[in-house]
C-alpha cells in the first residue's frame, strides 16, 4: 500500500469531514428557498447552518484553503443577515446561499486534485458584499455580527461539530483500501475453502468407513457456515447509505432546471438503503445522466404542463429500496414520456430489431446508435447519456429498464448487486472449459432432449415458457475451437433486461460463490466475459457477461 504524504492524508480527512457538512448545508438552503418562495419566512434552521459554516470556515483556514474560507465566511454573513432581517428571507437571497454552498461543495470535493479557484470564490464574495450592501426594503438594518476569529474558538467549534455518534459509538475512521485488502484476503480464503468438498469427496471414496470422515464432514460444513457469516460481516463494513450519492443531486437538478427555465422538484426516498461503497462510487455518473435527461428532455415547461392540466411544477423522484440480494433504484419523472414512434423510426433507420411492442421499443433507447447527437433532439430527447449510463450499470452487474406512458412520464428501474466482490454463480462446462455464469442473469437451465433445439436458417431456436428464443452454441460463441463435439446436454437461459438467450453447454458443474477478479487490460475488452475467478482447484475460470452475450449477434 502506498502511503500518501502527510498533507495528502490531512486533505483526505478534511474532505471526509467537510464534504458531508457542505452538502447538508446546500440541501438545507434548497429547502429554505422552497419555503421562502411559498411565502413562509421561517429561518429557524439558519442559526444552526451558520454554525456549520463557521466550522467549515475554521477547518478550511486550518488547511490554508483560503477560497473555501472566504466563501464560508461570506455565507455566514448572509446567514447573519437572514437571521436578523425577515425581509431578507426571499428567493434571491436563498439563491445566493445555494450558489455559495454549491461552490463550497465543489471546492471541497476537488481539494485533493487541484487548488480551489480563488477567482470564483472572490467573485462570489464580491456579489455577497453587493447584495448585503443594499438594505432590503423595510429592513431593520442589523449589521452582521463580527466574527470571533481566534483559533481557540475554531478548535472548540470543531470539537462540538463532531457527530455525537462518533464519540458515543466508538467510531473509527478507516481507509477504504484497508477494507479492500481485507476483502482480497477473504477471497483467497474462500477459494481455498472451496477446494475442501472435493478433497473430502475423494477421501471419502477411498476410506469411506473410517470415523474421521464424518468428523471432517462436520468441520467442512461448519467452516462453510462460518465463512458465510464472515462474508456478511465483512460486507457490512463496506456499506454506506445511498443518500451519500443522492445528496449531490438536489442542487444539480435545481441549477439545471433554472437553466432550462423549468420548475422541477426533486424528491428522494429510501436514502437509508445501504450499498457497497465500491458500487456507490460508480452509480453517481449513470444517475446523473438519467436525471439530466429527465430535466432537459423528459419534463415539459411550466406553460406546457398547465396546458395539459398538470401542475406547473414537475416532480422528479429518485428512490432506492433493498430487495433480498439486490438494490432497486428508480428514477421517475412526470413529464411527457417517450415518443415511441420516433424511437421506432430511428431504430428502423439503424436497422435494429423493432419487434415486441411499446415496452421493447422503449428499451431501444439504450442502444448506442440511438444516442447520436442528432437523435438527441428528435427521439423525444432521450439521447446522449443513456447508452453510457446503461453500459455503466451493466458493467456493475446490474440491469436497467425503462417504462413510459405518454404524457404521464418515464420510470427508469435500476437493479444493482449489493456487492461487486462476490458473485453467486453457476459453473458450466463447454468443451472442457469452465465458466462462471452470474446467477442473477440465469432464468433457468434446461436439459436438452431430442427436438428441444431446432435449427432455423442455421440459427438455434427453442421454445421456452411459451415463446421462441435464440439458443447459441457455447463453443461457437466462446470460440473454444473444438471441431466435433457430442451434442450439448443443457442450455442456460440468460437474461438481461427484456432480452433472453439460451446458451448450450456440456455440463452444469454446480453453484458456487466466486470471488470476482478483474481482467488485465491487455486482454482487450471481450464482450462475452466480464472478469475472472479462481476455482477450488486453482484454475482460472472466466465469468460470462450475460448482458454482452444476449446482445451478441446471433451465431449458429
Amino acid at each position, binding site marked *: 500500500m502506498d502511503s500518501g504524504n502527510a498533507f495528502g492524508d490531512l486533505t483526505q480527512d478534511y474532505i471526509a469531514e467537510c464534504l458531508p457538512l457542505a452538502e447538508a448545508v446546500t440541501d438545507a438552503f434548497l429547502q429554505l428557498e422552497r419555503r421562502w418562495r411559498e411565502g413562509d419566512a421561517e429561518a429557524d434552521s439558519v442559526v444552526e447552518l451558520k454554525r456549520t459554516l463557521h466550522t467549515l470556515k475554521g477547518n478550511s483556514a486550518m488547511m490554508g484553503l483560503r477560497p473555501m474560507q472566504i466563501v464560508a465566511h461570506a455565507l455566514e454573513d448572509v446567514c447573519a443577515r437572514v437571521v436578523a432581517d425577515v425581509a431578507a428571507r426571499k428567493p434571491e437571497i436563498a439563491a445566493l446561499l445555494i450558489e455559495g454552498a454549491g461552490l463550497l461543495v465543489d471546492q471541497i470535493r476537488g481539494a485533493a486534485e487541484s487548488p480551489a479557484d480563488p477567482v470564483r470564490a472572490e467573485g462570489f464574495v464580491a456579489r455577497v458584499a453587493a447584495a448585503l450592501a443594499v438594505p432590503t426594503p423595510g429592513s431593520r438594518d442589523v449589521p452582521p455580527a463580527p466574527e470571533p476569529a481566534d483559533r481557540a474558538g475554531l478548535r472548540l467549534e470543531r470539537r462540538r461539530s463532531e457527530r455525537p455518534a462518533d464519540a458515543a459509538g466508538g467510531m473509527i475512521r478507516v481507509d477504504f483500501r484497508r477494507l479492500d485488502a481485507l476483502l*482480497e484476503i477473504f*477471497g*483467497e480464503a474462500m*477459494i481455498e475453502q472451496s477446494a475442501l468438498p472435493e478433497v473430502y469427496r475423494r477421501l471419502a471414496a477411498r476410506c469411506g468407513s473410517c470415523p474421521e470422515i464424518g468428523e471432517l464432514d462436520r468441520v467442512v460444513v461448519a467452516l462453510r457456515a462460518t465463512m458465510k457469516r464472515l462474508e456478511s460481516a465483512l460486507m457490512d463494513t463496506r456499506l454506506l447509505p445511498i443518500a451519500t450519492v443522492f445528496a449531490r443531486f438536489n442542487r444539480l437538478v435545481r441549477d439545471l432546471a433554472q437553466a432550462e427555465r423549468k420548475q422541477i422538484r426533486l424528491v428522494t426516498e429510501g436514502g437509508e438503503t445501504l450499498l457497497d461503497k465500491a458500487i456507490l462510487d460508480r452509480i453517481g455518473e449513470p444517475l446523473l445522466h438519467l436525471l439530466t435527461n429527465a430535466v432537459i428532455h423528459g419534463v415539459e415547461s411550466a406553460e406546457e404542463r398547465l396546458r395539459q392540466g398538470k401542475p406547473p411544477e414537475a416532480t422528479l423522484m429518485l428512490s432506492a429500496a433493498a430487495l433480498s440480494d439486490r438494490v432497486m433504484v428508480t428514477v421517475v419523472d412526470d413529464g411527457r414520456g417517450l415518443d415511441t414512434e420516433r424511437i421506432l423510426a430511428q431504430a428502423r433507420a439503424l436497422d435494429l430489431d423493432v419487434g415486441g411492442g411499446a415496452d421493447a421499443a422503449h428499451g431501444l433507447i439504450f442502444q448506442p446508435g440511438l444516442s447520436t447527437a442528432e437523435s438527441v433532439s428528435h427521439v423525444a430527447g432521450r439521447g446522449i447519456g443513456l447508452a453510457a449510463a446503461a453500459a455503466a450499470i451493466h458493467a456493475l452487474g446490474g440491469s436497467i429498464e425503462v417504462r413510459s406512458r405518454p404524457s404521464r412520464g418515464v420510470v427508469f428501474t435500476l437493479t444493482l448487486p449489493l456487492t461487486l466482490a462476490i458473485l453467486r454463480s453457476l459453473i458450466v462446462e463447454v468443451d472442457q*472449459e469452465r465458466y462462471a455464469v452470474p446467477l442473477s442473469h440465469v432464468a433457468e437451465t434446461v436439459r436438452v432432449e431430442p427436438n428441444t433445439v431446432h435449427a432455423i436458417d442455421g440459427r438455434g431456436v427453442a421454445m421456452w415458457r411459451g415463446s421462441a428464443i435464440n439458443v447459441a452454441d457455447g463453443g461457437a*460463441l*466462446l*470460440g*473454444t475451437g473444438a471441431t466435433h463435439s457430442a451434442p450439448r446436454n443443457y442450455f442456460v437461459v440468460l437474461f438481461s433486461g427484456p432480452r433472453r438467450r439460451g446458451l448450450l453447454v456440456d455440463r452444469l458443474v454446480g453453484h458456487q460463490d466466486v470471488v470476482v*477478479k*478483474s*481482467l*488485465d*487490460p*491487455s*486482454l*482487450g475488452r*471481450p*464482450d*462475452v*466475459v466480464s472478469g*475472472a475467478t*479462481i476455482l477450488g482447484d*486453482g*484454475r*482460472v*475460470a*472466466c465469468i460470462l457477461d450475460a448482458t454482452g452475450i444476449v446482445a451478441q449477434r446471433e451465431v449458429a
Partner: protein
Amino acid sequence: MTTPARAARPSGANLFDFADQIAAQAQAAQSLAQATEPAVAQLQLIAFRLDAEEFGLPLATVREVIRVGDITRVPQAPEHIRGVTNLRGRILSVVEIRTRLGLNAAVPGPRSRIIVVEVQHRVVGLLVDSVSQVLKIGVDRVIPAPDEVRSEASDHISGVAHLDQRLIILLDLERMLFAPNRAVPSPS
C-alpha cells in the same frame, strides 16, 4: 569510429538472419573499441530460448520465473494472449511471445516457463520455451538495432548482445506488449 553499413530491411520471417546481420556488421567496430575502452557499465539480463535462438530481457523488469500451470483461454482476447493463469490468487495474463515474433504458438513442455515481468506498472507473464540463465553484459557489447531497420517483426528487437560465441537478441518489451498489434507475417 566506422559507421556500420546500413542493414538490409528484413522480411518478417528471417528475423534471426537479421539479428545475425546487425551483429556481424557491428562486431568489427566493437572489437576495435574494446581494446581501448576502460571498464564499462554492466547490463543484467535474463536469457531465455525460443526454438534455437536466445533472447534477453533486462533483469530489472523481471519479477519472477514460474512453472507453467493451467492457462485458461479468454474468449475474444487478442491473438498474442495465450490466456490467464493463477499467480498466487491473482490473475496473470500470459503473452504468447512466440506468435508476437512471427513463430508458431508454443507447445508447453517440461522446460517451459513463464517469465513474470512488470512493464509500465503492469504485470504480465511471457511464455518461453526455457530460461537459460542470468547474465551480466557490458553495455558496449550491445548493438542497438538501427531505427531505420526497425520494422515488421524486428520492431520488437531493441538490439543484439554478443557474448563469446552466443548471440542474444534483446527484446523491446514496451513495444512488444503495448504497441498496436500489427500483422506479423507468419512463416507459411
